[in-house]
């Protein structure tokens, strides 16, 4: 259970698998069944005709043209998305990719998630539950996934065309598809998709049609907003926490406050007669369980030792849990008495050579020893919680022949696996209702909330049980961005540019993405040595909007700024000079664009300053210089003499290659910048006697509307390179260092640790 090494290897493997191919045979596109065997509709307002039970009346019966799409006689098109919706537009993106080729009417489009149960029962019609859990997760612009969805749309369109041509007895080459109609221009005839669907479902194509290349902004031209937005604004959107079922009961949860501890004692008698109380379920992670031979590996996901109080209503369960006397055996984690103790351990370890040499190119140590111009700085980032606004929760109903679960997990296949594992049943018995995801940022990749509710529901067979975590439970039982310290040393040449860089990283997690795979450490600085060491500690960690990168971008870009200052050079000019020979033109393009747009170097009043930073996320260690997404930020800050910091403006330029939906990209860039800003200014979790101290937003502050700087997103950094790299995580990295560098220019003070709010910024 405490095996953090297992998690790291899983995570790493999973993340690499983001680029793995999803293969689907041609046969899959041709399968057509009369049954409506799809997934569960989520958060979508259905026209009444669609809501009604499937009918055999051909006038109203919908037709499943392929497992991916259903066309109704009234032309409503139901598309099935392999990706859930967590706010980044993935589900809409999937639907748009199908729609683009299908040439259907977007205004009549509805979306639900694919049924994984159907996938396992019908020879993997979606190709979902085979291979890797990440095949259908992560970013929506993976090449393989995009092509698959376009093919789904193209295939159905061609079959509709064949059906129309046959009905008119004309060559199929003479008919065209346009906005939900098949038209025959020569005779001026047209048929609606709803009129053709039943015939189209019977068509077998000799050959799959080619898909069209996607031109820039192709999807944004069909729809700007997300398909679920209309339900979000009237309260009809269904997140996991909103799922309801007749006879449902509720659980309130408490896990061992020190991660890895064990339940020692509790006194049910103290709450037995409280209103609504139905019982207590003890979660014992050491309980032996049946090993299932599942055809798919998930992310390591486990529950902590816990008690769950079950009651007729949620508030009754909460009150009874609060009244329940519980004793815990804290276990070895309690030895970590304070954050200062952990800091001390990390800083001491930085004085010794790392246990792993991640990179050693040229002779960094020799160059440093020989140099008289050494720059050295130590940086730190603390534990941080993803804190999505929907608290963790899940609902489960276990009966003899099926396990039904409702979950707002971010990876449907992971939820599916966790449900099967915990219920100890084969996949065929698992039915997942994928709900809308009320924020993820990495926290909902694990399914630990689902695992707990399935364990509870097994004790209440036949009754739907929903377990809702309190905010405090969620914040103290996280899978955190890990605590990291880094000591960076550079030897500057006569021209002030770094000749050698040594980075020694000591951390409580794993990985150096954002440090070993950025431009500077890949050939631009001739001598580079990166060392790492992991400090074993009981606190659980996981992915957090660009894990690792969000710390290392701060370390590297603050340090480069310190080198520029030591060389007495402008920070922008310094970076441009360093990047002169970089094979990826995107870096320089982004820097020039963001500097021009933000008015870099303009005269500012005392107490104000601009700072700049650039980084790249998503290249997965690729040797191709044009990979991932590069993001450059200019921050404009004001610091009062009494030390009050106000971030006035953030400008960003980025290069993800190409863009399909500009407004969707702008939204992610804005959100990513604010996530990075909150992380840098505010976020910190502390440790006391092995426990996480902060439990809610009164102790873990969040930026509000009044704190929001002007956010400007610029498109002039795009190189047009043939890739659609991710956009949610990259903006998180450069914001913190850009702000810290701006604070330096405003006050002369270097900020070398997060959160910035804890620093004394007074100046005279």
């Amino acid at each position, binding site marked *: 259970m405490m095996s953090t090494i297992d998690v790291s290897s899983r995570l790493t493997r999973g993340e690499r698998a983001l680029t793995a191919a999803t293969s689907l045979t041609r046969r899959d596109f041709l399968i057509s069944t009369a049954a409506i065997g799809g997934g569960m509709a989520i958060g979508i307002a259905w026209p009444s005709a669609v809501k009604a039970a499937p009918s055999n009346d051909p006038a109203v019966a919908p037709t499943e043209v392929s497992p991916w799409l259903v066309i109704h006689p009234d032309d409503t098109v139901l598309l099935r998305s392999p990706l859930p919706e967590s706010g980044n537009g993935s589900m809409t993106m999937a639907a748009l990719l199908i729609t683009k080729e299908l040439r259907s009417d977007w205004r009549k489009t509805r979306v639900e998630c694919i049924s994984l149960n159907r996938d396992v029962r019908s020879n993997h019609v979606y190709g979902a539950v085979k291979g890797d859990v990440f095949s259908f997760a992560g970013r929506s612009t993976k090449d393989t996934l995009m092509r698959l969805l376009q093919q789904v749309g193209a295939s159905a369109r061609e079959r509709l065309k064949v059906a129309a041509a046959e009905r008119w007895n004309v060559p199929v080459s003479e008919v065209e598809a346009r906005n939900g109609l098949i038209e025959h221009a020569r005779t001026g005839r047209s048929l609606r998709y709803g009129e053709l669907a039943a015939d189209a479902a019977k068509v077998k194509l000799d050959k799959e049609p080619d898909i069209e290349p996607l031109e820039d902004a192709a999807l944004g031209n069909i729809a700007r907003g997300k398909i679920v937005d*209309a339900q979000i*604004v*009237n309260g009809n959107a269904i997140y996991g926490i909103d799922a309801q079922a007749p006879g449902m009961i509720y659980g309130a949860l408490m896990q061992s406050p020190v991660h890895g501890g064990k339940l020692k004692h509790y006194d049910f008698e103290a709450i037995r007669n409280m209103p609504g109380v139905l019982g207590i379920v003890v979660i014992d992670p050491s309980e032996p369980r049946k090993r299932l031979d599942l055809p798919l590996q998930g992310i390591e996901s486990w529950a902590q030792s816990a008690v769950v109080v079950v009651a007729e209503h949620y508030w009754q369960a909460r009150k009874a849990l609060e009244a329940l006397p519980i004793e815990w055996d804290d276990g070895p984690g309690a030895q970590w008495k304070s954050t200062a103790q952990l800091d001390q351990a990390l800083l001491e370890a930085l004085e010794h050579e790392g246990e792993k040499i991640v990179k050693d190119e040229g002779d960094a140590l020799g160059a440093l020893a020989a140099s008289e111009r050494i720059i050295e700085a130590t940086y730190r980032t603390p534990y941080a919680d993803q804190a999505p606004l929907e608290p963790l929760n899940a609902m489960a109903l276990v009966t003899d022949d099926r396990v039904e679960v409702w979950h707002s997990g971010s990876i449907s296949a992971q939820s599916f696996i966790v449900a099967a594992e915990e219920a100890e049943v084969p996949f065929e018995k698992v039915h997942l209702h994928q709900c809308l995801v009320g924020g993820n940022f990495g926290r909902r990749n694990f399914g630990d909330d689902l695992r707990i509710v399935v364990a509870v529901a097994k004790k209440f067979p036949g009754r739907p049980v929903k377990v809702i975590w309190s905010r405090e439970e969620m914040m103290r039982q996280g899978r955190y961005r890990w605590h990291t310290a880094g000591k960076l040393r550079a030897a500057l040449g006569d021209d002030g540019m770094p000749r050698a860089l040594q980075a020694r990283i000591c951390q409580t997690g794993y990985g150096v993405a954002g440090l070993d795979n950025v431009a500077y450490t890949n050939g631009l600085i001739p001598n580079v040595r990166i060392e790492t060491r992991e400090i074993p500690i009981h606190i659980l960690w996981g992915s957090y909007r660009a894990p690792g990168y969000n710390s290392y971008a701060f370390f590297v870009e603050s340090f480069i700024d310190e080198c520029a200052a030591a060389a007495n050079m402008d920070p922008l000019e310094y970076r441009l000079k360093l990047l002169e020979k970089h094979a990826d033109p995107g870096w320089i393009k982004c820097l020039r664009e963001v500097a021009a747009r933000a008015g870099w170097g303009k005269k500012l009043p005392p107490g104000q300053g601009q700072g700049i930073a650039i980084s790249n996320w998503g290249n997965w260690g690729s040797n191709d210089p044009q990979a991932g997404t590069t993001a450059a930020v200019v921050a404009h800050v004001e610091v009062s003499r009494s030390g009050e910091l106000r971030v006035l403006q953030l400008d960003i330029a980025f290069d993800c290659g190409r863009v399909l939906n500009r407004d969707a990209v702008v939204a992610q860039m804005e959100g990513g910048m604010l996530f990075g800003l909150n992380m840098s200014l505010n976020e910190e979790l502390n440790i006391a006697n092995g426990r996480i101290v902060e439990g809610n937003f009164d102790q873990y502050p969040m930026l509000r509307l009044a704190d929001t700087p002007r956010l400007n997103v610029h498109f002039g950094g795009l190189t047009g390179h043939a890739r659609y790299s991710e956009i949610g995580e990259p903006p998180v990295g450069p914001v913190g260092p850009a702000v810290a560098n701006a604070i330096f220019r405003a006050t002369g003070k270097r900020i070398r640790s997060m959160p910035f709010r804890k620093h004394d910024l007074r100046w005279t």
Partner: protein
Amino acid sequence: MKIDLRVNGKAQTVDVDPSTPLLWVLRDHLGMTGTKFGCGIAHCGACTVHVNGSATRSCVVPVEAVAGADITTIEGLSPDSQHPLQRAWLELNVPQCGYCQAGMLMAAAALLERFPSPTDEQIDAHITNICRCGTYQRVRAAIHRAAAMKKAAAARTA
């Protein structure tokens, strides 16, 4: 204990512990899930509803305190999803994950009732809800847009 409520204009009677927060009465007893649970300590505002027209964080209001009061939830903000704020929210693509947005909309609706053309300072002071996705810049723009829509509609009917 039986408590009479008036929710979105409809009379309701619930039989609950009178200290139960209004949020859980709405969600769990009345099955109205548009109002969200986010923090439980009135910090995030996801649970914002109107009590007699005032924006109120329902997670810390015992249901007995609002017996007989007029309560409006996101489901009752408009009969047809055509409140200027709802229209502006869609026009400007405000939501990301959307979980905080019901509370954000209810807070904004109360603001517009009080200040039909709010300044940035008034928006800053009254909209203190947390959005983890970072939609704040669009929230501000959409409030201004909705205020303009309301004004234009008023001018047409005048």
